[in-house]
């Protein structure tokens, strides 16, 4: 567990006055407040650190303890006992800024804070105002591209609770869906928060994807490209026969309508599959083939 320099978190030195601490905190909180930095985990972490630094440095008792022990914080427990013998000390604080984000509670404290000041000590993510609506929760769900080819149900375990969700076909990497009322419980008859699930789609298929369209490169032989003919290739969910026109150039594209990926929230609709032909040139020729190529060369090809 590492020592945290709360002064440097707030950009101050040890001589900072209570007013300096308040000012620095307000300034940085405006910069990193989660409401002003949606989907920014870095800012969220920074804001938690700011709250923690403020929690310690704005409380004269905590600040005194922190200043006295500093890097030697592991002996703070002895200090606590000694202090208890001296009677109760006063405490005042304006409270950290409130915010609604995932995982408020014990995990908002660093291990360092917990070890030095104990858990549950008057600091939580949103205690400034009476709670009502439950907290929104965020979760990531990693799925394979093949998993999102069709709409299906899936059970997730969020904070020990099983939630059955529908994964809509065609959802994209990085897309977020809201599951209403599956966030934290409300307080005082308030509504529950929502659960936001962000999908991480892993694609190890030979297909590239752009929305509902799929792209694939198919190698064809030199003779097939020159003379034309028929080939069989994989689509996402089967096979298809393709007619290759004589004289097909390297990079020629063919569009297979409706053979792409399902369109998100448009049941029964599919994007297209774009095939790009890549002509495979022979690397080694038999003596017979070489002879034939030389004959072709003589024709001016």
């Amino acid at each position: 567990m590492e020592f945290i320099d709360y002064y440097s978190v707030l950009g101050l030195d040890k001589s900072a006055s209570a007013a300096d601490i308040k000012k620095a905190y307000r300034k940085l909180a405006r910069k990193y407040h989660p409401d002003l930095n949606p989907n920014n985990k870095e800012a969220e972490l920074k804001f938690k650190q700011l709250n923690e630094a403020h929690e310690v440095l704005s409380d004269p008792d905590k600040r005194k303890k922190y200043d006295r022990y500093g890097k030697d914080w592991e002996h703070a427990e002895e200090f606590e006992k000694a202090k208890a013998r001296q009677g109760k000390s006063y405490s005042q604080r304006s409270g950290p800024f409130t915010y609604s984000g995932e995982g408020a509670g014990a995990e908002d404290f660093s291990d360092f804070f917990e070890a030095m000041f104990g858990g549950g000590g008057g600091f939580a993510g949103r205690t400034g105002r009476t709670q009502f609506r439950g907290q929104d929760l965020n979760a990531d769900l990693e799925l394979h591209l093949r998993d999102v080819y069709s709409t299906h149900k899936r059970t997730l375990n969020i904070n020990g609770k099983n939630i059955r969700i529908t994964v809509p076909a065609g959802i994209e990497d990085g897309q977020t869906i809201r599951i209403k009322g599956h966030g934290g419980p409300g307080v005082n008859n308030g509504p529950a928060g929502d659960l936001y699930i962000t999908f991480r789609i892993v694609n190890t298929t030979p297909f590239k994807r752009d929305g509902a369209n799929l792209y694939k490169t198919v190698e064809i032989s030199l003779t097939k490209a020159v003379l034309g003919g028929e080939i069989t290739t994989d689509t996402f969910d089967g096979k298809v026969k393709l007619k290759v026109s004589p004289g097909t150039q390297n990079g020629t594209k063919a569009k297979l309508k409706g053979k792409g990926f399902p369109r998100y929230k448009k049941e029964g609709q599919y994007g297209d599959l774009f095939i790009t032909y890549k002509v495979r040139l022979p690397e080694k020729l038999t003596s017979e083939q070489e002879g034939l190529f030389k004959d072709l060369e003589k024709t001016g090809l």
Partner: protein
Amino acid sequence: MKTRISINKLCEIYEIDPGFVMSIQEMDLVTIYVEGTEKYVSTEELPLVEKMVRLHFDLGINQEGLHTIHHLLERMEGMQEEIRRLRNRLDLYEDL
């Protein structure tokens, strides 16, 4: 589950003045429904109301600032969505 909440109750819970809710309604940030003498907001809009309360009372942002921030956040969310789509499209050009 209740789908709306009276403004009086809301103000009691969040310890705010009803004038604040009216002012964010005047900026078209929330919709207020009137039934008899009672005014309500939809619980769907509670997250937005809560956000405005936090920005105003915790960060000291004035009401004009709330309006501006709201629009900028909407634009930012739109841009984040566009970046996501463009990032996915960039995958097309990888390993080519």
